[in-house]
């Protein structure tokens, strides 16, 4: 089948007369592309897990496996020239926003071929129209509203997707951002990736209201099945139309799940059961669900999927090879990039006789 219409789950609506369509069109090419994107993210994250356990990746590493449909679906619903900002669970978005697996892994291993030349690490990767990668919980959301303000100011019909988690959803600065976005009708899609746990705290223990799609109060919202890439895409398109038509901001809650713990230092089983994790894997895995749908509608064959899997594994393996063999950044890059568009300046080293150089 070249293309087919698929039923997608109905979204819960807040202050909206109608929501995204309940049927989504999926072409074969789209399906294969979404599969490829999600599977690449999945394999990349699992490779990162491996490299972290081998101590080749250090510091913080927050993995995205389980949540792939969110990143893939959102990207399918916006334009490459739209803007996106997220928190620290950012590797998936770094990929969907156009950075190669090679440059992502090499950044995780701290090499000069990394997307931030090895200086940023896991939580600080950037790309055109992608503003990271932010380490401090919730801080990225007001920034996202600001980017939306820039879009409005420049009249370029672009919007900003501003992501945060269920933990950050209780942060005061989000409500300040909601207020200003609503007052000024900023083209901002606020998206809460609700994976049910803020570090080790379940949503019931953290929030007086777990209806995250309603937390924008006067801002319309929708709650979406974040494990279904088509659902996410349709909801994102709906939200994007809403923003671009000048109606102001909108809130989306994606109900999703992370297989890993909060970060690599969290086994992820002291606050939830292995049975729960296993149940999501077997019943709601975003990649399996898409594959089964396409197979049952004869949109692709088992062999095609296998072939793609082989290609993806190869791509990730080669990227990992690069990431482990590329040299670390040179020492003379230590002090660069303090200021933009600035004459070279002298930077004090660890003692007064260490006079280092900083270039823009």
């Amino acid at each position: 089948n070249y293309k087919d219409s698929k039923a997608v789950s109905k979204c819960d609506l807040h202050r909206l007369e109608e929501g995204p369509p309940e049927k989504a069109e999926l072409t074969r090419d789209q399906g294969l592309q979404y599969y490829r994107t999600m599977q690449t993210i999945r394999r990349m994250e699992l490779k990162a897990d491996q490299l972290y356990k081998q101590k080749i990746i250090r510091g913080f590493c927050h993995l995205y496996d389980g949540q792939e449909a969110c990143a893939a679906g959102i990207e399918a619903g916006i334009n490459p020239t739209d803007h996106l900002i997220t928190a620290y669970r950012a590797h998936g978005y770094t990929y969907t926003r156009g950075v190669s697996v090679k440059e992502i892994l090499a950044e995780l291993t701290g090499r000069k071929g990394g997307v931030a030349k090895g200086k940023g690490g896991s939580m600080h990767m950037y790309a055109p129209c992608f503003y990271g990668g932010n380490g401090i919980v919730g801080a990225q959301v007001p920034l996202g509203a600001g980017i939306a303000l820039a879009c409005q100011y420049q009249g370029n019909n672009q919007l900003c997707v501003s992501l945060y988690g269920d933990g950050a959803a209780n942060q005061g600065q989000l409500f300040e951002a909601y207020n200003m976005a609503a007052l000024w009708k900023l083209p901002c899609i606020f998206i809460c990736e609700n994976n049910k746990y803020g570090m080790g705290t379940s949503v019931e223990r953290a929030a007086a209201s777990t209806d995250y799609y309603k937390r924008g109060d006067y801002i319309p919202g929708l709650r979406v099945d974040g494990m279904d890439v088509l659902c996410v895409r349709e909801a994102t398109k709906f939200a994007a139309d809403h923003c671009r038509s000048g109606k102001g901001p909108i809130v989306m809650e994606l109900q999703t799940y992370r297989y890993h713990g909060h970060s690599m230092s969290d086994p992820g089983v002291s606050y939830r059961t292995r049975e729960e994790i296993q149940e999501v894997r077997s019943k709601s895995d975003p990649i399996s669900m898409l594959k089964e749908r396409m197979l049952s509608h004869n949109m692709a064959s088992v062999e095609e999927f296998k072939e793609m899997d082989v290609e993806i594994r190869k791509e990730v393996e080669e990227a990992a090879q690069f990431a482990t063999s590329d040299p670390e950044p040179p020492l003379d890059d230590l002090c660069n990039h303090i200021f933009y568009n600035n004459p070279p300046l002298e930077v004090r080293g660890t003692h007064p006789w260490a006079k280092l150089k900083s270039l823009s």
Partner: protein
Amino acid sequence: MGLIETELTESDPVWSAMDEELERDERVFLMVEEVAQYDGALQVSRGLWKKYGDKRISTLPFLRAGLRPICEFMTFNFSMQAIDQVINSAAKTYYMSAGLQPVPIVFRGPNGASAGVAAQHSQCFAAWYAHCPGLKVVSPWNSEDAKGLLKSAIREDNPVVFLENELMYGVPFEMSEESQSKDFTIPIGKAKVERPGDHVTVVSHSRLVGHCLDAAAVLAKEGIECEVINLRTIRPMDVESIEASVMKTNHLVTVEGGWPQFGVGAEICARIMEGPAFNYLDAPVTRVTGVDIPMPYAKILEDHSVPQIKDIIFSIKKTLNV
């Protein structure tokens, strides 16, 4: 009868300090991110919830009148989101109320550089907090410091910023029998001479005290005897101890992990110049500090962003002109 010594890591004396003070005073309670089921992000609050329950240990962020809260920041980098309250509500209230409203609160958590956690998670806040009147700022180095100073901080009737160090949590130290008693406290505002010496005064705080002692051991083989001072408290700073030492050694090197500008070392330099020890200096004071850049992620760059033992040795020799 010898001392009974046991090896404990910094996080154990921090735990036992809180445990003892929770037991001693009902008004003390602990507010922490991710305590209880996650067992405190770095497990420092491990088990306290199981022992004391929801009323004394909570993740609810509110101040109840008449109580003595201990507020844990997962790291001090996150304290910036609450820093207005630390300064404008905690530090200044007793002054603004002309003595009506004391604020007996402890803010504690790991501070400064860790390993591979990059720019937003590696900052040292000693200088920022120590700049503010109304706060006391404490920076322990070893297990005894951690325990004794935290107990004092909890018993202190004023706001205390207690800067721990993540890399020190796992380092074992011998602890004397005295330090294991429930009444063991170390006074806030008093530095400690960790190693006596005649040739140069080396002043530091937190993890780098260990680096200074290592540097001193190397230099001793060359006949250079360093007097290593562990500040223990940043504010109020024990300037008298530094002055007494400088008046003996005539040379001063300060060592800190934080950035150089407007930092702990800068303050020490200013205070020395303002006091009697200035006339005893045979050379300008040298500051050894972190490099004046955001913390990079790549290991080779990170290693070169913080003072190494060789930097301390080099600086001491340059100061002594040898």
